[in-house]
């Protein structure tokens, strides 16, 4: 049990993901699936494995050969026996070889088959885990019913005996790594998938489009493709000289099938339907405005579906769409059975009738031939009718998946232009960081950061620069700042002049990203700039906290603007505080108990803080307050302005990042479409500010506007 726990810990990092993994593994459905699989492996031997795959591997071991394809053909084996690459061979080798060893000791032929079956089981389990990791939030029961106990999966792997478990496991596992932004590992896995089964190449264009169209992920493309290429080269190139490899793996009848389905165009001219449909699907994906992970997964599924619908029926290939169908079901729980049940039943009936199966050990009679042969129902018309039904129900699922994917994808489509966010207040922000920490949700690559400090008219060492000037908007080149904002908003990059410590000038490029974040004392000061900001935030930290908001203390990277004289105080009120009236969202931080301040400075520990939030009424604060009180046991005081236009929240209490994450999932629909793979939610007041800002942004992106009461 302990090693089991450790194994699960490798896959997952979060408590909730871990808990779901435990739930998955402790379910009786999981045990049922395992036992059924083991019974199949112990009792049955699929015909394909017996005459082709196991034969192929055992031949290559007697004597041991580096090129199993040549060894196979030399010994007079069939050319169809192993149309897979080296990865497939190596993956199935160890356990099969071990079984073969036992067989030779006992002089039987049984355990090589068990070893072979267990290898399939291992990758089959790998697919289950990958789907779970991709889905992140899911009903374990639904996942187990839809995948682990699915008759189709059991049929393909353990009765019909196909080997698609390995390439599909590698592909889906690769997507998991991609989602976690480990592009090199993902590339390695995709390369292995292709080298296991060449047809996995069909997924690559979708992956390229997905990465290319998501600016945040685009730079991963290079790493991914290079590792994929290297992996494929290493596992394929050495064999290209071998004619047996070329004839058995590359020039198979399987490859020829691409051209099997066509429309006659008069004379000898043919229109091949598969390439046509495939290119069309790619184009549809390319044309999408934005591609979320969910839609990407669905489009890969749809791309594979194009193969299913426009290729002569091949039972194993149906497995390709299964993980994507299951993910679709986990997202869209209703109606799944109604849509998929006819497809699944027709699939099972059709293939039991017309495809090879397995022999059962305890029964003398052979059961591996297509059932239609036994009952004498080789009526070609019936076969065609069943086939038509199968294709029709498959097409139906495609349409449903596409429509759902598109509607889901469109959730955050309300906003067509770059989103401008201005944060003013009495704190000086760091570069590439904001007091509301949204970069930890969107990823820094999604945000163009502009800091007022970079628009200082006097550089740091200039004699004109003093603390007094910091408060005066005339010390900053605000027109250049707004010019830069508008340039970025048009999608063009800007160049900033920066002074390094040694007073050397250098230029810095800032790319135009989806969010433009302007921070600094006066970011809402001039109208032109303010009007371009879709969300205006004002953050005011109580001045008694100035000793804590200091980069020299470990807990803060923010510095409070410090003023000492009355004149500076007047300047602050005149130039900075005045911006409050323009803000959509106001945060105020103050100590709960000012007496604790003295003691705190000695310990360099931030005292307990109270966060006050002011925002527009009737939006989401009720839900937020319920969650804060109910889920987290926080103390919240709600007040509304006299005309009920604004709402004021005063929040006290300890809140962890896990609490924030859970509330975020409740308050922000389809959060995973906005956030990076593993968003970092903050703890305490930072987390609350992050959460409340995120809800505002998600609402803007969904509806395309903000209710401004300024």
């Amino acid at each position, binding site marked *: 049990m302990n090693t089991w726990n450790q194994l699960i810990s490798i896959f997952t990092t979060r408590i*909730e993901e*871990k808990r779901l993994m*435990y739930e998955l593994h402790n379910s009786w459905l999981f045990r049922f699936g395992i036992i059924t699989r083991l019974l199949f492996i112990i009792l049955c031997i699929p015909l394909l494995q017996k005459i082709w795959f196991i034969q192929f591997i055992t031949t290559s071991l007697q004597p041991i050969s580096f090129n199993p394809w040549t060894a196979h053909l030399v010994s007079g084996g069939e050319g169809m026996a192993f149309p897979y690459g080296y990865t497939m061979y190596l993956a199935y080798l160890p356990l099969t070889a071990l079984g073969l060893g036992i067989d030779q000791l006992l002089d039987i032929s049984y355990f090589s088959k068990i070893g072979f079956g267990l290898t399939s089981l291992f990758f089959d389990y790998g697919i289950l885990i990958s789907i779970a990791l991709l889905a992140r939030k899911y009903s374990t029961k639904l996942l187990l019913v839809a995948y682990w106990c699915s008759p189709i999966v059991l049929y393909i792997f353990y009765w019909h005996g196909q080997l698609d478990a390995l390439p599909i496991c590698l592909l889906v596992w690769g997507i998991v790594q991609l989602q976690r932004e480990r592009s090199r590992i993902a590339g390695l896995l995709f390369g292995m998938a292709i080298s296991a089964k060449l047809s996995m190449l069909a997924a690559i264009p979708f992956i390229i489009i997905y990465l290319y169209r998501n600016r945040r992920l685009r730079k991963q493309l290079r790493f991914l493709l290079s590792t994929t290429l290297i992996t494929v080269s290493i596992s394929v190139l050495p064999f290209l000289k071998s004619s047996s490899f070329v004839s058995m793996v590359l020039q198979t009848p399987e490859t020829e099938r691409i051209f099997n389905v066509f429309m006659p165009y008069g004379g000898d001219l043919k229109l091949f339907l598969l390439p046509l449909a495939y290119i069309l699907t790619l184009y549809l994906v390319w044309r999408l405005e934005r591609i979320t992970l969910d839609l990407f997964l669905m489009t890969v599924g749809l791309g594979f579906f194009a193969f299913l619908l426009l290729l002569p029926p091949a039972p194993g290939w149906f497995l390709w769409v299964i993980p994507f169908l299951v993910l679709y079901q986990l997202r869209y729980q209703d109606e799944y059975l109604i849509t998929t049940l006819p497809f699944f039943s027709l699939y099972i009936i059709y293939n039991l009738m017309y495809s090879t199966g397995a022999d059962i050990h305890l029964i003398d009679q052979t059961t591996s031939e297509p059932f239609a042969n036994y009952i004498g129902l080789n009526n070609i018309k019936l076969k065609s009718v069943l086939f038509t039904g199968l294709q029709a129900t498959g097409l139906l699922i495609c349409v449903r998946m596409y429509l759902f994917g598109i509607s889901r994808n469109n959730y955050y489509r309300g906003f067509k232009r770059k989103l401008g966010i201005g944060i003013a207040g009495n704190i000086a922000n760091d570069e590439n960081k904001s007091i509301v920490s949204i970069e930890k949700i969107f990823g820094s690559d999604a945000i163009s950061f502009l800091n007022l400090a970079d628009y200082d008219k006097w550089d740091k060492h200039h004699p004109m620069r003093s603390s007094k000037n910091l408060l005066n908007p005339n010390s900053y080149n605000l027109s250049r700042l707004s010019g830069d904002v508008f340039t970025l908003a048009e999608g063009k990059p800007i160049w900033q002049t920066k002074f390094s410590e040694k007073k050397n000038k250098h230029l810095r490029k800032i790319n135009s990203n989806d969010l433009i974040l302007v921070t600094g004392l006066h970011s809402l000061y001039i109208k032109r700039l303010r009007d371009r900001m879709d969300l205006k935030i004002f953050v005011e930290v109580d001045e008694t906290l100035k000793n804590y908001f200091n980069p020299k203390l470990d807990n803060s990277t923010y510095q409070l603007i410090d003023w000492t004289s009355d004149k500076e105080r007047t300047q602050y009120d005149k130039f900075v505080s005045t911006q409050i009236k323009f803000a959509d969202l106001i945060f105020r931080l103050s100590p709960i108990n000012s007496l604790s301040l003295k003691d705190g400075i000695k310990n360099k520990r931030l005292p307990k803080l109270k966060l006050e939030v002011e925002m527009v009424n009737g939006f989401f604060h009720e839900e937020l307050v319920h969650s804060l009180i109910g*889920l987290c046991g926080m103390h919240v005081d709600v007040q509304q302005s006299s005309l009920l236009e604004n709402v004021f929240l005063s929040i006290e209490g300890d809140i*962890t990042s896990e609490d924030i994450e859970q509330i975020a999932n409740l308050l922000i629909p389809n959060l995973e479409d906005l956030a990076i793979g593993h968003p970092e939610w903050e703890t305490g007041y930072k987390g609350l500010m992050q959460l409340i800002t995120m809800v505002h942004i998600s609402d803007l992106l969904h509806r395309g506007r903000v209710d401004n009461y300024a």
Partner: protein
Amino acid sequence: MLKQLNSSITLRRPDAIVFDTDNTLYEYEPANAKAEKAVEVKAQNLLGIDPDLYHATYQKSKKEIKSQLGATASSHSRLLYFQRLLELLGFKAQLMTALDLEQTFWRTFLANAPLLTGVRELLDDLRFHNIPIAIVTDLTSHIQMRKLTYFHLEETFDAFVTSEEVGADKPDQRNFELVLKKLGLNKTHNVWMVGDNPATDIVGGKSINAVTFQRLQMEFEQGDGNCKPDFIFNHFKDLHECVLNLFESSET
């Protein structure tokens, strides 16, 4: 189906309906199991405790707290269980960790405790027809108030009594007498008591002459002997239908 077990009762429009909370308004066990698992995972993460040791110690700490406090509200306190667990494991007073584990417990618990279907509709209709509704529940007030807030029921009930307020868990009669007092009623009024546990809710209900309803579910058997409810039901829509029929007949 609402099934009548005590034939001597004719249902009339009630003067008030009193509800238990845990396992009556929502399913307790699935949420509890998930929450305990989440705490276990977290404790292993934070402290690196072996799972078997964790389980054994958790059971032991639960037992100790329960025997120490008897049938009182705080005998169910997760915070006390986790604090004792940490002490038994030799971690001394790790107060932050205990609080963190407690919060992890309730966060996971609530996220996995949806209100049963039909509850909200029933409560809304009762309020619409001016039938006072109340809660009598074990456990401490703070967490029970948090639960009701989370369910968006914080302004629904006319009276709210926890065993913390009374000093003893149900079936202690004082819980039920207090709720009558808060509602301004007495034992002669036609009060209904709805709960899941025969030994506490039904027995307690009987102590104030209430008509008793048991929601049948996995955890408790149908009550027998002096725990025998007057009515049993599986779904709230059955109870809802029965109430609606009474309203109709009383209006005509």
